């Protein structure tokens, strides 16, 4: 049972992982992540790569929406910007470890432009502005053929490291997962700094934050740029994973997917972004498995798969909002507290 919080020095207070048990778990996690593609089959590796990309993007959205309170309905479009930028750079021969940050920066630059209205408007109005940005960027993806390849999109070459092509899901896994881990640690640490705390202050009450000396102009745009950077990198990884950038991949539906992920996971929580992205990626897969299992007895089930997915997706959003607004992260916290305090009641 944990009885208190015994931190006696600043070094202890600043430590990311406080107890030896936590450090041991961390080590186990790293080993597990490194070994995963060898232990799991190709299908699970595919899901893991997709999940890594979703986690990065959802964390970016969480920085904007969950921590700073800027609702973005255009997150997929920022991913698209990153994906196209990476495709453009990769086809020009730029190696992937330069192209990915470049994609992130391109997306951040566009994010800065889209974020400018946030200085005048907020809440609902801002959500509608980002929705408009989603459609305008989608239009650009479809129509700016010299760069984006129009409706057909563009293909990407396989990324290569020291002359070795990185092909196949297992190889891409070793790009995506380290990138995801690095970006998650960065995000976690961001909220231990002045910048991150300023974001939270703006979310809670922007006028009060400004009175406290937080420049809304600077920090809102910073939040938007960081969030879009995450989206851009995720988009670039998406491009390397599917080896193509197509306009329909980055639709409003994907933006809504990320919003749903952070709501289901928990707004304003890094763990929430991970849990939510994982959950929302797994649910459709689980549905597909269930349908494949039922289909021999009830053939129409296959036709109902895609509508069922939508219904479950919507029901999850509404259900979590009504019954568990703090999401899976809060449920996890409750479970942990139960075990920490056992045998006493929480």
């Amino acid at each position, binding site marked *: 049972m944990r009885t208190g919080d015994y931190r006696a020095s600043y070094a202890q207070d600043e430590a990311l992982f406080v107890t030896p048990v936590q450090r041991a778990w961390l080590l186990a996690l790293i080993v597990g992540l490194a070994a995963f593609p060898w232990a799991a089959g190709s299908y699970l590796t595919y899901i893991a790569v997709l999940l890594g990309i979703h986690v990065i993007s959802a964390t970016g959205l969480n920085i904007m929406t969950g921590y700073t309170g800027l609702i973005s309905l255009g997150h997929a479009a920022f991913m698209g910007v990153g994906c196209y930028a990476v495709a453009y750079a990769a086809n020009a021969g730029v190696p992937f470890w330069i192209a990915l940050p470049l994609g992130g920066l391109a997306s951040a630059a566009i994010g800065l432009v889209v974020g400018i209205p946030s200085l005048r408007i907020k809440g609902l109005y801002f959500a509608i502005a980002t929705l408009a940005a989603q459609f305008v960027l989608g239009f650009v993806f479809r129509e700016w053929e010299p760069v984006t390849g129009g409706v057909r999109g563009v293909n990407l070459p396989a990324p290569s490291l020291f002359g070795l092509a990185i092909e196949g899901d297992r190889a891409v896994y070793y790009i995506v997962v380290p990138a995801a881990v690095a970006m998650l640690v960065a995000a976690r640490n961001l909220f231990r700094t002045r910048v991150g705390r300023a974001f939270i202050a703006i979310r809670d009450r922007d006028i009060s934050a400004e009175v406290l000396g937080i420049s809304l102009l600077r920090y809102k745009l910073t939040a938007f740029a960081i969030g879009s950077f995450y989206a851009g990198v995720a988009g670039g990884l998406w491009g390397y994973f599917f080896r193509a950038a197509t306009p329909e991949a980055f639709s409003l539906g994907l933006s809504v997917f990320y919003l749903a992920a952070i*709501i289901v996971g928990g707004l304003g929580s890094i763990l929430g972004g991970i849990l939510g992205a994982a959950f929302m990626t797994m649910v459709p897969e689980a549905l597909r498995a269930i349908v494949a299992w039922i289909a021999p007895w009830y053939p129409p089930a296959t036709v109902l798969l895609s509508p069922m997915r939508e219904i479950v997706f919507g029901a999850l*959003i509404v259900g979590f909002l009504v019954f568990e607004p703090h999401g899976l992260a809060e449920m996890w916290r409750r479970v942990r507290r139960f075990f920490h305090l056992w045998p006493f009641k929480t």
Partner: protein
Amino acid sequence: MDFLTFLEFSVVGLAGGGLLALIALGFVLIYKGTRVVNFAMGEFMMMGAYLFYTTHVAWKLHWAPALALTLAGIAALGALVERTILRPLSGQPVISIVMATIGLGTILHGAADAIWGGDNLALPELLPRKPVFVGEILIPGQVLWSFAAACALIGAFLAYFRFSRTGVAMRAAASDPVTAYAMGIDVRRTSRLTWIFAGLTGAVAGIIVASMTSLSPALGNVALGVLAVIILGGLDSVLGAIVAGLAIGWLEAVTVGFIGGKARDLVPYVVVLVILMVRPYGLFGTREIERL
């Protein structure tokens, strides 16, 4: 392009704008009454059109009882949504409300797909197709009659809010729920009625749109473009919805005429971005003042 063609596109656009105004009215009613922007409005339209398809085409009822049944169904849906989703969320942050209506839209979209299938269905043409000539300008019959229907419905709603006791109560509850509650107005009832009325306008608009084009689960996407109308007019202004509906309808038609069909999809969103930068509360909306 000569002046006559310009005039023709303008008139057609204005007439098409009547329909936009009707859809926008559904948004504005809900925003005024409950401070919610209903992103599921398009799905309400779609459900209305599908219910009408079932009653009119599948059950072969005459259009009048079919329409009555449809409206009753949509009213029940609106009341159910208000009770089960929006009321538990009242007072929650904006993102919860936005996402709840988006989630609701997804559920309705999936439900329509599951019940009626994803294929295009055809509603019989309810409105006469015969074009009408005003001087030398040709107006397609359906566009003109849909404009007339939209005007009639908007007029009926305005009269209801102006003259009926319930309508006045709804306006009171919209402008200040706490005071209205203290004065003995049942605010829960007015907010339920608000959702029912918005569902009704959506259903009628959906039936008109579906009878002019075709009916599929994608019908709901029309409503996202209407966001431009309510942003331009002001989220809480009925007059704004009408004026902006006509303006956007005109702008879309003229864009199609002068620049081409592709640019049409872009028009509403560019308008949204410009308006939000220049005058975020719209032409007739209330400027929100925030106090700590």
